[in-house]
């Protein structure tokens, strides 16, 4: 793989403006929410809060439903991601390396599922789940969120597997490795960084998913984001929602740190066919 270093003699002002606007759009709301989370008193004309403090942290973290939701969300994301990996990675390998009848149509259907408005699909699924007594259950939510991860967990790994040099796999067969051993010791590590990216995306995506979790999970199952939304909708105190949303940043940060460690530079680009 070659890395192209663009030679730029002039400063790219357009690029800088664009980057600045983008960071403003992302960082701005984060700063406001972050500030609210540590605010005790902040009345209208003032630009900065009158009084900072951790009072609302204590109150929020003291609530049992917050802790239940956090544990539940982590359990859900873990179970969904693991299941998704177990189902999707072999399928992705099959798509990448084998030809079978209906391969292209099946492959395309994973994309098609995401091309239509999701809510209608969810309502239809909810109707089916209702009959199966899956509404309001843990496994009902797992199932609905599993569907949401399919695209990431198929498309990205397929690209990753296709990028693995066939000769490397043949060389491993040549020195005595069985096909399964080749997959385990050569193909998977070669595709590893990109697949790690897909796993990460599906974990974080599941953690923050609200539509399916709410539609299928309510009222028995309340994940962190669902809880946060209900706080924001039902409570007059902004701080509860703000504290929760700051709490929700934690998995993102952990994921990003993990990503930096596991995924070397350029792997994301490779995953997307770069």
């Amino acid at each position: 793989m070659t890395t192209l270093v663009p030679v730029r003699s002039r400063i790219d002002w357009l690029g800088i403006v664009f980057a600045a606007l983008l960071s403003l759009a992302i960082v701005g709301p984060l700063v406001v929410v972050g500030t609210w989370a540590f605010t005790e008193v902040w009345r209208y004309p003032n630009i900065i809060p009158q009084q900072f403090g951790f009072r609302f942290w204590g109150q929020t973290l003291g609530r049992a439903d917050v802790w239940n939701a956090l544990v539940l969300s982590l359990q859900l994301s873990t179970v969904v991601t693991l299941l998704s990996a177990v189902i999707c990675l072999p399928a992705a390998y099959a798509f990448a390396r084998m030809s079978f009848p209906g391969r292209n149509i099946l492959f395309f259907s994973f994309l098609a599922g995401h091309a239509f408005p999701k809510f209608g699909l969810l309502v239809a699924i909810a109707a089916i789940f209702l009959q199966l007594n899956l509404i309001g259950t843990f496994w009902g939510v797992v199932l609905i969120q599993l569907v949401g991860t399919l695209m990431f967990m198929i498309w990205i790994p397929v690209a990753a597997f296709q990028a693995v040099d066939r000769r490397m796999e043949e060389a491993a067969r040549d020195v005595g490795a069985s096909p399964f051993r080749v997959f385990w010791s050569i193909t998977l590590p070669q595709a590893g960084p990109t697949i790690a990216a897909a796993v990460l995306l599906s974990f974080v995506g599941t953690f923050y998913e609200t539509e399916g979790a709410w539609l299928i999970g309510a009222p028995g199952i309340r994940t962190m984001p669902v809880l946060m939304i209900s706080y924001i909708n039902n409570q007059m105190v902004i701080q509860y929602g703000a504290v929760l949303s700051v709490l929700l940043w934690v998995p993102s940060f952990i994921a990003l740190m993990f990503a930096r460690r596991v995924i070397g530079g350029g792997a994301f680009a490779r995953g997307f066919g770069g």
Partner: protein
Amino acid sequence: MSVLHIADVTKTFSGGTNAVDSFSLDVADGELVCLLGPSGSGKSTLLRMVGGFEQPNSGRITIDGEEVTHLPPERRPTGMVFQSHALWTHMNVFKNLAFGLKLRRMPAAQIREKVEAVLELVGLAGYGDRMTTQLSGGQQQRVALARSLVLEPKILLLDEPFASLDQHLRERLREEVRDIQQRLKITTLFVTHGQDEALSMADRIVVMANGKTEQIDRPDVVYRDPKTPFVAGFIGTMNLIEGEVSNGIFVRSALTVPLPIADGPATLAIRPEALDLSASDIPKASVHRVTDYGSHGLVDLDLADGTRVKSMVAHPDMLRAGQGVDLLPRAFAAYRNNQQIYRS
């Protein structure tokens, strides 16, 4: 004793034509055989069938008397070196070499010993901790060779292993591989489309075209006595002149050569170094261009009908463009219906 026995092997890809067509070959213990042929002649396909990466449509392959025709690569006593070296980039050099030994459940201490010995053999002692991406092209190819050698295969298969290297390195590695091969007395099949590579390394050369054998012989024999016009034209430089034989005389334009064969069309093959020139009142060809290489000269000549022939001469300074000369073949062969029918 023949170690590798290939009998009447045919391989057809879905496209239709036979990539390898009724091919047979016996390779003796410790022998290095080069498969030589133009692009698409089926060399790689044949090698990959011996390695187990392709299945022949018909025919048999046996190694040491044991039939392996349909065994997968991991169950064959062969070791393959790929053109693209195919080293595992997520492992360092040591792990690349140790992988196959680990699969054979060899104790760690013994693995270390063997890997170090083979690294020494290919001139890379102390490189075990390097990542393969931190090596030069020649070093990578040496590691690839070592990866096969460390498992002590009965047959070593090399598919144009030096094709991506520069001329200088290629020549050096060629000698190293030949040295190692002779020291270990390892039976080797070597694919190349470089004839100098084949001529300098091989015990025997198999010249292939369109999936078929054209000739199997020692390098010097292939060069001196090509059995088909294809081989004659493929190995070294050769004047191949189409003409007619009548009454024991080969005729093409003003060129006439005594040829004691039955009347009919024939192809005359003369090496440039076997075609002498002399000044003449009734010239048979005219000098087109003279190239002086210092040690010798190469002369391009045109027959009256425009046919181009080449001659190698010791004193090119005696000749100039436009000059008329007589052609005196010292040694030649003649072919008809793709078969050699005469050799002087």
